[in-house]
């Protein structure tokens, strides 16, 4: 790749910032790990859907409903292409990653995990990829095992292998940790899990906005992600599943659109993917997600990764100069994927977040829905700055300026 000069970067910044109406310069948004801002094209796509083609998709036999159905199914095709799924039958729209993961635990889990079986997850999972498995295992009398990474978050191939045995029927793991920012080698782990006879479920909530996720290349059995973390509206998410697995899984929710034929005695299930989409769907959300994925593709992951790494490096290098700051996870910016979680000696994370807020810098404080990981890191809570594709050097400098004032504002004389 040719060198990215300051001028090229600034021009690109300017072009991208113009796409996001909310980013008016009055605040610095660095909470992208929680949710992202929406580009104009997404807002317009949703608006256009409700203005010109809103009807209940897949129901009415009139033009408007057919338009709505077409918009919905086109969105599904955009998702399929974005994650390189084999067919649109393998793409199920949900509310968010949490619902997708629950769908897998409720349907695949309850049908195929039995007493004495083992489910393997990691200590760095978000609660949404932990509690569904805890509940399943409790209900079934199955064993839930947590992979404990090295101190910096590394899970080596050897370590992963050591957790495999003949009882392991399912592995569910995050692609990128929402706290440490570390990326797991899921391609290798999925292969090992398969050799061991287990299915592999991937939580892509944090990876999907930052890096290319190709389900066929990674060869994962399930992929869950939320739209709102990749510049789409809230309330739309995706579950990818391999067709052979989805076909043998029972439905998740029951009701309209998921049935083929109903009598008073029972029903037969609709074909994929509708079997898993009971009730009126979120068509406007799906259209918004499609627009968001096209937007991300138009910028391209080469540029997104370079931009985000450039800023992560800048942020981490400056933070390392402050002896009272401790960054969780690995030393190298390459292993953070835009997520920088830290503590400040003597200042509670909620006070840190409050002072950042006084400086109009939006970051996250708390346990990040990963309490067991916080315990593993020996801290009850932390502060997280997370970078998105629209962040700029200026955002990072504003963050650093506020950061350097915090101990002083809390009464310390450094």
């Amino acid at each position, binding site marked *: 790749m040719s060198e990215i000069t300051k001028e090229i970067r600034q021009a690109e910044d300017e072009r991208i910032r113009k796409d996001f109406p909310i980013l008016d310069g009055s605040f610095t948004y660095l909470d992208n790990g929680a949710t992202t801002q929406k580009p104009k094209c997404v807002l317009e796509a949703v608006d256009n859907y409700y203005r010109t083609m809103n009807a209940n998709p897949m129901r009415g036999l009139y033009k408007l409903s057919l338009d709505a159905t077409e918009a919905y199914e086109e969105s599904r095709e955009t998702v399929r292409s974005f994650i390189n799924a084999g067919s649109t039958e393998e793409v199920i729209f949900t509310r968010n990653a949490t619902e997708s993961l629950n769908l897998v635990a409720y349907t695949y889990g309850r049908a195929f995990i039995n007493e004495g079986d083992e489910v393997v997850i990691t200590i760095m999972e978000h609660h949404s990829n932990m509690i569904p498995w805890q509940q399943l295992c409790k209900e079934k009398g199955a064993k839930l095992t947590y992979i404990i990474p090295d101190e910096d978050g590394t899970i080596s191939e050897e370590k992963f292998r050591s957790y495999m045995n003949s009882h392991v029927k399912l592995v569910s793991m995050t692609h990128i940790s929402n706290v440490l920012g570390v990326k797991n080698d899921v391609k290798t782990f999925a292969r090992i899990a398969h050799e061991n006879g287990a299915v592999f479920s991937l939580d892509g909530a944090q990876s999907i906005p930052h890096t290319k996720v190709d389900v066929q290349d990674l060869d994962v059995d399930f992929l869950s992600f939320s739209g709102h973390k990749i510049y789409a509206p809230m309330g739309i998410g995706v579950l990818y599943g391999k067709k052979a697995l989805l076909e043998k899984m029972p439905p998740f929710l029951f009701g309209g659109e998921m049935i083929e034929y109903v009598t008073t005695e029972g029903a037969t299930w609709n074909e994929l993917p509708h079997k898993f989409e009971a009730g009126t769907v979120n068509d406007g959300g799906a259209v918004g997600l499609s627009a968001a994925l096209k937007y991300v593709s138009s910028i391209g992951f080469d540029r997104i990764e370079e931009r985000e790494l450039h800023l992560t490096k800048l942020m981490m290098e400056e933070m390392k100069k402050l002896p009272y700051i401790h960054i969780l996870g690995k030393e190298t910016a390459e292993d953070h994927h835009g997520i920088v979680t830290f503590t400040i000696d*003597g*200042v*509670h*994370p*909620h*006070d840190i977040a*409050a*002072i950042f807020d*006084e*400086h109009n810098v939006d970051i996250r404080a*708390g*346990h990040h829905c990963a309490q067991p990981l916080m315990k593993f890191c020996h801290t*009850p*809570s932390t502060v997280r700055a997370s970078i998105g594709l629209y962040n700029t050097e200026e955002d990072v400098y504003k963050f650093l300026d506020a950061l350097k*004032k915090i101990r002083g*504002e*809390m*009464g*310390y004389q450094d």
Partner: protein
Amino acid sequence: MANTFYNEILTDHNIHPTHKYKMEDATFSLEGVNPSCGDDVVLYIKVNDENTIEEASFFGDGCAISQASADMMCDLIIGKSKEEALRLSDIFLRMIKDTITPEEKEELEEAGILEDIHHMPARVKCAVLGWHTMDQIFKDAEEGKVDKYDGKFEQ
């Protein structure tokens, strides 16, 4: 420089608290927790035969607001009767949630600086944690439930 809520009185109570320690011979002790943000304090109160709060302390983790508020509360209630302490707590909670008169604010002494929390809904729980815990201690004592907590959190 931003207009910070963290003034010197508050930060001083947080960094150099007067009453932050475990009390071995407390009459009552009770743990108060804000599960959503992780603030966690144990409040210790020693009451003498004349029904006067002879000593009050707290110990635990939490943000500056929770810690400073608990420290200022201990300052205020030492030497007061249980009834007087509860009356001050009522004033404090009304200050955080509603409004109080200038005379009432005066009675709260330094704790009156937390009045601005009124405009910070996310931090209300931090500010009232110690005070709620004190109310609960006396409520439990009245209902004869004290034994349940007595010494439980001393390690």
